[in-house]
Every structure is written in C-alpha cells, then in structure tokens.
C-alpha cells in the first residue's frame, strides 16, 4: 500500500539527514585539530545525497524506491590554514602547523539546514500516520 511506502521514503531521508548532521558534528569537533603536514590536516566532510531511482540502487538498509541515500562523503576542497607556531610539538621543521579547513559559520548553517530537512520529513510521517489511522476507521461509525 502506498501510504506504507511514505514511511519508508521519509525514513531514508531521516537517515540521510542524520548522517549529514553527524558529519557536521564531526567537522565542528575537529575545527581546531592541527597536523604536521598539509596532507594530514583535517578537511571538512560533506555527504553527497543521491535519489534511489531504480531497483539496482536498493539494498537491505533502504528498500524504498524514490527515497534518498548517502552516495559518498567528500572532503571540503577549500585550502587548509597554514600557521606559523614553532612552539607547537606538531610543528614541521619550518615551524608551521596545518589547521583544518572547517569554517564554523558554514557548519552551523549546514546543521540548521539538516535539522530543518529532518523536521520536514518528520511532519511528512506524522501526516501520513494520521491519514492511515483515518483510513482504518472508515468502516467504523
């Protein structure tokens, strides 16, 4: 039945938005992480979503056509900050440390967007649930 499907579709979206919020939390937690080389420096993580449009894309965790999944997680491409700090034990031989490229403001905005999308999908589920209950009551009265 189609209304059942709505729960699943919104469920995949809740899952995806939660992954996004997790990535944001991880980014914020690592905003002040430093490293000794440019390569090792922490880069912000961004999940990329993908719509589940055909049967081949489904797996055990997402059985619902038309839902959404996290396709992959990419690194933020902006450059990492290179700061001179010779006293830091992690500094390289020239006295530089490499800070993460996380921008706190961007992360806060991302978190709010993820939370709003999550709420939207919760509302979808609530409405679908009410409609389903009313459908069950059709033969009463």
């Amino acid at each position, binding site marked *: 039945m189609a209304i059942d499907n709505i729960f699943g579709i*919104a469920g995949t*979206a809740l899952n995806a938005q939660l992954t996004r919020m997790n990535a944001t939390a991880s980014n914020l937690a690592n905003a002040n992480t430093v490293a000794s080389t440019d390569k090792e420096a922490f880069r912000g993580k961004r999940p990329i979503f993908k*719509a589940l449009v055909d049967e081949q894309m489904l797996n055990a965790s997402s059985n619902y056509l038309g*839902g959404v999944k996290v396709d992959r997680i990419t690194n933020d491409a902006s450059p990492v900050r290179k700061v001179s700090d010779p006293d830091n034990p992690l500094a390289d031989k020239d006295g530089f440390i490499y800070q993460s490229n996380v921008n706190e403001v961007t992360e806060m905005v991302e978190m709010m*967007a993820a939370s709003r*999308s999550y709420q939207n999908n919760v509302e979808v589920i609530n*409405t679908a649930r009410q*409609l389903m209950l009313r*459908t069950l009551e*059709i033969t009463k009265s």
Partner: protein
Amino acid sequence: MGLLSNPLGIHERSLAVRSQRLEVLAQNIANADTPQYKARDVDFRAVLARQQDPDNRMTSTQSTHFDEGAGLAPDGLRYRKPFNTSFDGNTVEMSVEQAQYGRAAADYQATLNFLESRVNNIRRALRGE
C-alpha cells in the same frame, strides 16, 4: 451503476491515486537536498481519466485473473517547473512541496469522507431503515 454493484464508485480509485500522489510528494521532500534531483508531481486529471476509461483498462475474462488495480503509469508523472533555479540542479522547492503535501493530505481526507458516507449509506440500505 447500482448502489450494490459498484458500492464505492469513483472514490475507491480516486483514493488510490491520491495516496500515490502523497507518495510522490514525500519523495520530493525526501530528496530536497539531493543534487540534480528533479521534483515530480502526479497529473491527477490524466491519471484518473485513464482509470475511468473502460477502453484503457485490462478486463478480466476469467475468475482467476487479477484485477489491474489502480496503478500509476509513468506517464501520469510530470516534472515540476521551479520558480527559482538552484545551484546544484535540484528543483525541489520546500515551500511548494509543503503546501502541495498539505493539500494532498486534505484531498485524501475529503475522499475518505466520501467513502465513509458511501459505507454508511450501504449499511443503512442493508438494514432497511
């Protein structure tokens, strides 16, 4: 089209199409942040017309045949025209989708009300009140 030969009338099929529409809108809302996703909607008039047209429906000639059911053909779906373009090619506009979803839910309830009164009518007819 007697009361008892087709007791629920058009509303039975209409309820199926309406719940399909809710599903399509839920897909749009789920994919609000998916790059390159194109929002879709059900062309209710076209789908219901197809449902009602007897020439377009498969007929069951034997008792073992399954009913075609109120399925949704791919041609019943239309891509939505967005008001604004977005950077990642996504055409879901959350305000539009929310409004449409609310309306679709109300439409669904309206159909439920019609069905409910049909059921009540039949019950009264059977009781002979």
